[in-house]
């Protein structure tokens, strides 16, 4: 390990601590918001939005995704696409409303 690498890591340490504190704060916020008993759609949106921000920080900073290579991005984008398909299509298919008549 050379001195340049040591310095590199030291520079990043600040970022890691900031993210750590932010994660704890966002956790508190998400629990706090739950006590507001928002309407279902709003509650889901807010909770998932906060979760996405937290997850984004963990991925970008702790997992170094923000400075990761193209090949990893490609794999993850492909995965995200199929994840969305897996989440959406079964639910859309199961809950598509129809009158029950064949062909409707």
């Amino acid at each position: 390990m050379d001195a340049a690498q040591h310095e590199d890591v030291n520079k990043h340490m600040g970022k890691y601590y900031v993210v750590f504190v932010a994660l704890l704060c966002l956790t508190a916020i998400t629990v706090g918001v739950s006590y507001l008993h928002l309407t279902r759609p709003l509650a889901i949106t807010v909770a998932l939005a906060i979760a996405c921000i937290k997850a984004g920080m963990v991925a970008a900073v702790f997992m170094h995704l923000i400075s990761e290579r193209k090949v990893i991005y490609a794999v993850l984008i492909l995965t995200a696409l199929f994840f969305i398909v897996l989440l959406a299509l079964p639910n859309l298919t199961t809950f598509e409303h129809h009158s029950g008549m064949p062909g409707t």
Partner: protein
Amino acid sequence: MSETVIPYVVKPHPVTGIPNGKFGIWLFLASEVMLFGALFSSYVLIRTGMPHWPPEGGLASEVLNVPLATLNTAVLITSSITMVLAWASCKMGKLPRFRLWMGATIGLAFAFLVIKYFEYTHKFELGHFPSHDNFYAIYFTLTGLHGLHVIGGIIVNSYLVGPGTKMWATDPEHFTNRVENAGLYWHFVDLVWIFLFPSLYLL
């Protein structure tokens, strides 16, 4: 040992820019996204198909132990930062520091499991097993599978802090890569919980 020499185990590939192990662990995490994704999709499907959730009435936040789960969330988040510190210690050549922070990570992981144990046993005392209704079924299955992944992480991290450190003497860069890859897995476990917590406990 008559082992063939595989390139790019430690040094990154000139075109992709990453060593084999990092590529491998990200691919594994992609498959894990699909695994937990399937369970989340199932959760949505089952829940949407029921008139009330939880089926017995009330709110999820009343039925499940939000304070304990919030504590567990903080525990996992902290274990993530200690994991980063463990890796950073390797990068800076400080093996004793690595042992300290990796030990902390493992300790926090155990704490998570202990808290989970209290959560589960309390449910069982009330007669709320997975078979009670689909709310509990999905709760136990999702958190249970997550818990198994925590155990997996404990095993890997314990190996690294224990017998695995032998590699530090001969190939510290390779060892650091391994710690980084284990860290990627561990952060993913944290990531899953970040979504599990609000989805199961708060919504």
